[in-house]
C-alpha cells in the first residue's frame, strides 16, 4: 500500500464539508431566513395545533452525486475541486428548495389555503387578497413583523408593478391601509386573549 496521509485528508475532508454546507446555505436564497432546527432522532414531525388540527410530516433524504475520474486526480487543482463542490452545493440547494415549495403547496392545498387565480395576471389585488388570508404578527411599536413574498422568477416584473400600484393608486393604498389596521386589531384581540382564566 502507498502512503495515504489519512489524517491530513480527513482534515481536508472536514473543511470541504464545511465549505459545501456554507455554499449550500448561500444558494438557498428562498429559504435562507426560515428558522432551522436540527432534529436528532425519529422519522418525522408532528404539530398539534391549538385548533386541534394535527399536521404530520416525515423526513426526506436528499442527496447529490459528483465524481472525479482517476485520470483527473493528478491535475486537479484546489480551485477546480472547490468549483466542483460549489456546483454540487448549488444542485443540492435547488433540490431542497424545490422539495420545500412542493411540500408547502401540497400542505396549503390540503388545508384550503390556496388562492388560485386561474391564469389571471398578478396584480395589487392579488397582494391584498393574500394579506387578507394570513395571520400577521405585530411588534409593540405597532409595526408588523417582516413579511416575505416568494415568487417564481418570471413573475418579478409583475410583482414589482403590483407593489408600485399599491403605493401609488389612492384607492388601493386606502384599502391596504384599512386592511393593515384590521390586521393590527385582530392581532391586538388575539394577544389580549392570551389569558389563564378562572
Amino acid at each position, binding site marked *: 500500500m502507498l502512503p495515504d496521509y489519512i489524517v491530513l485528508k480527513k482534515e481536508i475532508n472536514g*473543511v470541504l464539508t464545511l465549505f459545501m454546507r456554507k455554499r449550500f446555505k448561500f444558494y438557498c436564497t428562498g429559504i435562507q431566513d426560515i428558522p432551522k432546527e436540527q432534529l436528532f*432522532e*425519529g*422519522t418525522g414531525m408532528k404539530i398539534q395545533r*391549538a385548533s386541534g388540527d394535527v399536521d*404530520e410530516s416525515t423526513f426526506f433524504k436528499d442527496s447529490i452525486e459528483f465524481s472525479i475520474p482517476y485520470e483527473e486526480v493528478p491535475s486537479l487543482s484546489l480551485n477546480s475541486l472547490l468549483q466542483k463542490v460549489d456546483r454540487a452545493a448549488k444542485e443540492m440547494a435547488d433540490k431542497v428548495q424545490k422539495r420545500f415549495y412542493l411540500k408547502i403547496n401540497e400542505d396549503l392545498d390540503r388545508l384550503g389555503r390556496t388562492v388560485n387565480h386561474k391564469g389571471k395576471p398578478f396584480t395589487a389585488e392579488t397582494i391584498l387578497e393574500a394579506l387578507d388570508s394570513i395571520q400577521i404578527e405585530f411588534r409593540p411599536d405597532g409595526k408588523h413583523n417582516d413579511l416575505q413574498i416568494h415568487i417564481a422568477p418570471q413573475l418579478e416584473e409583475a410583482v414589482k408593478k403590483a407593489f408600485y400600484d399599491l403605493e401609488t393608486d389612492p384607492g388601493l393604498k386606502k384599502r391596504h391601509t384599512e386592511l393593515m389596521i384590521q390586521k393590527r386589531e385582530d392581532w391586538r384581540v388575539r394577544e389580549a386573549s*392570551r389569558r*389563564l*382564566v378562572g
Partner: protein
Amino acid sequence: MLERLLEGWLDSASERSYQGPFCQVLSAKGYKILHSTRHCALEYGKDIIAIGPDGMPCAFQLKGNPGARLSLTGFREIQSQLVQLVSQPIIYPGLRISEHRSFLVTNGLVEEEVHRALDDLNRGWAEQGAIGYPVELISRGQLLADVQEYGASLWPSELEDVNKLLNLLVKDGKEHYPFDLASEVLKDVLLLEDDVAIKVSSNEIGRRITSAALLATITLRNFYRERNYYSIICGWCMYAAHVIACIERHVKSYNKNAKAAIEIAMASIYAALSDLCDEIKERRHLVEGDPLTDAVSYRGRYTLIIALMSCYWFWGNESGFLKDGQDAFLTKFIPRDFVHHYLWGEGAVPQILVYIWYLRATEAGIRPDLLLGALLRQIIGANTQKNNNGLSSPYYGFEDEIRHLMREFLGVKEDPYQDTKFQNSSYFAKPLLYLLVRTNLKQTAKSIWPSYSKMLHKHFVPDSKWMYCLYRSVKGKNVDDQPLLTKEWRELQQEARECRCPEVPAPLADNKFLLLLFSIIFPFRAIPSVVSKLDRYFNGSWFIHEPPIER
C-alpha cells in the same frame, strides 16, 4: 482478541471495579445477591452476601491484586478479615443465622504458599466448628473463565463493531462517557437493532444481559481508573436503560430476567455517588484539572454536582445507607439558593429541578415553589425575547454551549448549533408549568401564560415504548404542541394531576432513582409525563384539591 481484552481488564481492575461484574456473574450462575453495596453505614463484614443456587448463604471477601500475585505476606495482612468472614455469622435482615459458605476472591494469581496457609487455617477452623468453614478461594483463573463464558462469547464480533468497542476502550477516562459508541455496542449485544428478530428465548436474553454488564464494565475501565464518578454513573445508567429496553422489546419478564442485573448496576451507581460525596468532602475546592481554563467549566460542573448530591441525599436517606458524616456534610454543602447555579441550556433543567426538590424536602415555606416559578420565568423569558438565540434544546450539552459561546475565540470551524434558533419553543416550559400549578401559585402562572402561549412545546415520542430507553431512537415523532390562547385554570389543574407516564416501560418508570438519573444524563428524555412522575416521587407537597392520577 476479545478474550485478551477481558484479560487486560481483569489484570488492571481494582477491587472496587470488579465487584459489580463479579456480582453479575454470580447472578447469572443462579446466586441471589442480597448485599453488595460498599461504603455504607450498614457494613455486614462481608463484601458480598448472596444465597447460592442450593439455598446456602454465601459470603465473599474481595481483594484486588491486579496484574500481581497474592503473596503470603499479603495473605497474612488480610487474615484477620478472613477470621471474621469464617467465624462470624451472616447478619442480614430477614436471613436466619445459619452456616454459610465463605469465599476469598482475588483477581490476581495466588502463590503456592498461600494455598498451603489457607489449608492450615481451614483445618483449624474445622476443628473449632467455625460457622463459615471452609474458606474457598476464587482467583484470577476462575474469574477469567467466568467472565469469558458469560461475557465475550456474546460480544460483537463483526470488525466494524469490534472497532467501536476498541474506540470505547481508548477513551480518556477524564472525559464524558461516549454515549453514541456505548449505545451502539449495547444495542448489538442486547438485540436492540431494528433488523434483529424478536423470537429469542428467555435464557438467551438472560445470558445477553450478563454479557452486556461485563461489556459495560470493560468500557468503564478508564473511567474507574480516573475515578470519574459521573461517567461511571452514566455508563451504568445507560446499561440499565438498555437492559430494560431489551426486556420490553423481547416481551420477557423483568423480574425473572433483568431485575437482579439492574439491582447490581444500581448498587454500582450508588457506590459511585457515595465515592463522589467522599471526594467532595475531602476537597478544599471544586476546581478540576488545569485551573487556568477551569473558570469556563466550573459553574456547569457545579450545577451538575449539586444535582448529583441532591439525588444522593434522597437515595441515601431512603435506603438508610448514608455513611457517617455524609448527611451532615450534604446539608452543609448543598446551597440554599441558586446563586452559583448555571442554566446554560434546557439540558440543565433536570439538574436544577432535583435541587429544587431537595430544597422542598428540607425546608418548609413557599421559597422552593417560588424558585420553581423563577426557573420557569427564566426559560420563558430567554426563549421569547426578540434577538435572542434562546436556551439551547436538551439535545445539546454543556460543552456545545461553551463551544457556541466561545466559537470565535476558539476558532471553531462550525458552530455546534448550526444556525438553530431556539426562540419561541421549549422542552421544559410545559412540564414546569404543570409543577407550578401543583403548588397553586395561580398568579405566577397567570402572569406567565401570555408568553407561554406563544411558544411551541416540544417533546419526542418514540414509536415503541422500548425505544424510550435508548440514547437515540431511530423511529418516532418530534412533537410540537401549540397551546390555546385562553385556558381555564381548572382545565390546567386537571392536566397537572396526571402522574402516569405511559411512554416509559414500567421497570424504568417504577425505578425512581434510575429514572431521575436517566433524566439528568439524557435531559431530552425528561418529557412532560416523566417530569410529572418524578415530581410525585421527590416532591411531597400537593396543592390541587383532587388527588394525583397515578393509576
